[in-house]
């Protein structure tokens, strides 16, 4: 019964989504307040029905209803309840429903938090989101229905893929999808603005918090995916430039460019056409990512089971949504006109450089990801493009962007004087260079690449410190506390997010420069030493789990030269009962300055095992940096100016002025 109700809820949601789109667009076009007024309620209704459908599917999983095909294929009665719940989105069908739920949530959020925005604009925004919902609901109902029944019901399920039976599975997809889908709000704002013919600083101010929120979630989602890969796959790697990883990274790059471009549009009213294009591109990349992962055009460790029919449907959907929006852009953007002027050295030009570099980096990732497809489609051969390519191309592109990131916040709008910039930043520059040159000696060996990476990170931090110092020194308030309160949250957010980038760069540079590993065979009683730590393999024992049986290894860790065991690590090799698949569970001791990481390979003759031991210095700074970026973004969108209440309309004169060439 419940699955049928869930399916029915989806059908109702589809009908409501159609109404949401239709009434909104007709209402906005004709100016009929009655029609426009319905958009919020219809959108809320659509959200509630999608939520109901999702609840129905989740219920089927948690209650282990094996008359539902999806539950049979991806769950098992011995699975712990939280993984049964997470299995709701462990399949293509389920994750599409999660996408649609997120879309509903964001739509509902827009309906609730937009009272202070112009009626027509909000109506169009909800209308655009309604169109996207229609696409997804149709896709689910026509090709990917999670509520298909199995009659007679199976006795037991085939179990969730062991790789997914992990806390990461509970957190990573919801965060990621919230981010992906969140960009649909910025997208909708862009289309609405184009249709309205109104693209000004106010519009940028309205869409900025939504965009930043989506970006925060996407940052956290990608970060979680990376952490999960690190501890789950057993090889100590955290980023593989896998097509699906790239599919999430491309919208992130576009989103980062977008939040910076919006800053310019909000403050100075320039870059309007470019910002709108970026907003369209960011969400389009989310959709293209969906296509790449589910259509089978690229091989990936992440790819869902593919079906050409689905691929065609999604492609059609892409054509309508992206093609349509780019057509609207081509049609309406020319009227936007040129914005204000600015000097070659100014905050605008630095942010423009930021955008150019991010856009080129984005294009490079896209090129690398799709190139094998391009060649194969043209029958020009079959190649692979992997980490060696991306590393070689991406870092040279991002390095200048990071360098400029330190300078941008210090430069003034419209015109900045180079001598003034130098005056403000020379100490930061000097300290960064000296420290960067000396620091590698502390860690071990010296190399120009390591020194360069350290310098970039230190430069950003030093410039940030200099900026905060100078701001406080020059502030008119008396007393430190007053000065702290006087600065806006968005300013703090920016500083913290930039420091997050610096922390990320530190982590990557140090880990790549100084990590070591041992890949060897160990029998019980044998020792191996790595980076001053002594690992002793004590042997293994059997350990049953809820739906698996494990062999657990025991390792005693001492500091080299000491006899005292300060740490024990327990890597496991799990065999899952239902599927028979085996899984390595690494054992990690995280730390501020290093991770110690042990995983079991294959058993060999006697009691010996293949063992991998890793020393990963500063690896947690990579994700700490991502967390700081997200925190900074969150602070920025909490800024007071987004919460000011206001009346419905702006003076007509300003709108007309903004659109004239």
């Amino acid at each position, binding site marked *: 019964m419940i699955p049928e109700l869930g399916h029915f809820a989806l059908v109702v949601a589809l009908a409501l989504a159609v109404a949401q789109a239709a009434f909104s667009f007709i209402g906005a076009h004709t100016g009929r307040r009655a029609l426009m007024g319905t958009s919020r309620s219809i959108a809320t209704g659509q959200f509630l029905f999608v939520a109901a459908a999702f609840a129905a599917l989740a219920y089927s999983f948690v209650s282990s209803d094996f008359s539902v095909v999806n539950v049979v294929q991806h769950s098992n009665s011995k699975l712990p309840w939280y993984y049964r719940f997470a299995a709701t989105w462990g399949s293509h069908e389920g994750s599409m429903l999660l996408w649609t739920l997120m879309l509903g949530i964001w739509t509902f959020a827009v309906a609730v938090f937009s009272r202070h925005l112009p009626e027509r604009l909000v109506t169009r925004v909800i209308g655009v989101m309604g169109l996207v919902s229609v696409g997804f609901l149709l896709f689910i109902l026509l090709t990917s229905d999670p509520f298909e029944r199995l009659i007679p019901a199976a006795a037991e399920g085939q179990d969730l893929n062991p790789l997914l039976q992990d806390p990461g599975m509970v957190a990573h997809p919801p965060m990621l999808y919230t981010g992906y889908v969140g960009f649909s709000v910025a997208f909708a704002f862009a289309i609405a603005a184009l249709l309205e013919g109104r693209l000004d600083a106010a519009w940028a101010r309205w869409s900025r918090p939504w965009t930043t929120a989506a970006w925060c979630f996407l940052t956290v989602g990608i970060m979680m995916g990376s952490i999960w890969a690190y501890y789950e796959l057993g090889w100590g790697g955290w980023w593989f430039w896998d097509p699906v990883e790239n599919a999430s990274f491309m919208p992130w790059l576009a989103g980062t460019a977008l939040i910076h471009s919006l800053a310019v549009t909000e403050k100075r009213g320039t870059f309007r056409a470019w910002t709108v294009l970026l907003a369209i591109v960011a969400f389009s990349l989310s959709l293209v990512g969906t296509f790449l992962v589910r259509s089978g*055009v*690229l*091989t990936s460790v992440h790819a869902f089971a593919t079906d050409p029919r689905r691929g065609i449907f999604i492609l059609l959907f*892409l*054509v309508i949504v992206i093609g349509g929006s780019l057509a609207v852009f081509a049609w309406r953007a020319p009227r936007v006109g040129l914005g204000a002027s600015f000097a070659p050295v100014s905050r605008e030009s630095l942010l423009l450089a930021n955008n150019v570099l991010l856009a080129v980096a984005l294009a490079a990732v896209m090129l690398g990801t799709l190139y094998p*497809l391009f060649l194969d489609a043209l029958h020009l051969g079959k190649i692979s493009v992997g980490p060696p390519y991306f590393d070689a191309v991406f870092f040279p592109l991002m390095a200048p962007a990071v360098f400029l990131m330190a300078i941008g916040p210090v430069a003034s709008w419209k015109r900045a004087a180079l001598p003034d910039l130098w005056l403000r930043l020379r100490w930061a520059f000097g300290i960064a260079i000296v420290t960067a040159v000396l620091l590698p000696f502390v860690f071990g060996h010296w190399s120009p690449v390591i020194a360069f990476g350290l310098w970039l990170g230190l430069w950003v931090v030093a410039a940030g410190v200099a900026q905060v110092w100078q701001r406080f020194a020059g502030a008119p308030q008396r007393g430190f506390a007053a000065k702290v309160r006087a600065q806006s949250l968005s300013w703090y957010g920016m500083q913290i997010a930039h420091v997050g980038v610096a922390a990320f760069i530190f982590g990557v540079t140090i880990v790549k420069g100084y990590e070591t590993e041992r890949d060897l065979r160990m029998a019980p009683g044998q020792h191996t030493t790595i980076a001053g730590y002594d690992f002793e393999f004590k042997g293994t024992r059997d350990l049953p789990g809820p739906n698996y049986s494990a062999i657990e290894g025991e390792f005693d860790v001492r500091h080299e030269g000491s006899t005292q065991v300060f740490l024990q690590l327990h890597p496991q090799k799990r065999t899952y009962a239902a599927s028979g698949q085996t899984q390595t569970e690494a054992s990690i001791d995280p730390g501020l300055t290093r991770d110690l990481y042990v995983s079991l390979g294959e058993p060999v003759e006697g009691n010996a095992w293949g063992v991998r031991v890793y020393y990963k210095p500063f690896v947690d700074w990579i994700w700490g940096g991502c967390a700081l970026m997200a925190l900074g973004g969150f602070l920025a969108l909490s800024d007071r100016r987004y919460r000011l209440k206001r009346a419905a309309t702006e003076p007509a004169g300003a709108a007309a002025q903004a659109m004239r060439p």
Partner: protein
Amino acid sequence: MMKFVKFGVPFVLFAILVGFFAVGLTRDPREVPSPLIDKPAPQFQLTRLESPDHEFSPEQMRGKVWLLNVWASWCVSCRVEHPLLVQMSKTQQVPIVGLDYKDQRVDGMKWLSTHGDPYVLSAFDDEGKVGIDYGVYGVPETFVIDKQGVIRYKQIGPITQEALDRKILPLVKKLNG
């Protein structure tokens, strides 16, 4: 006018991308084409599966158009194509030489007696080294080799009736002159 062109660029780029995606849907990204096409078949000398005292090398097939079919007793997909091969051997259209890849001699022979033996003979590649030389990455795979010992076609995965009718048999006919 220039303005409109400039704003239309994203749309045009997207259209090109969609074109590639559409073609991409018809391609198989997992398939690895062989770089050995139109190159001489790598030489080897292996014992025969049925008689360890006798050896086989591709040179023995010079002057004939023949198929080299890579199979194994542990390979499930091989059972799918095997009836076709048995059928082919009955009609004597083209000699088929088997390459028993990473198998146990006993298991291989048992498998042939159970499922039928379409092969002129089977070479026994227990270590898989010859497989590597031929770029084998998934069993079954089949090579069409001409009278001069040059590889002319590689079938990745089981031979289907369609592949047989549309590619392999016409090619064999053509190579036979």
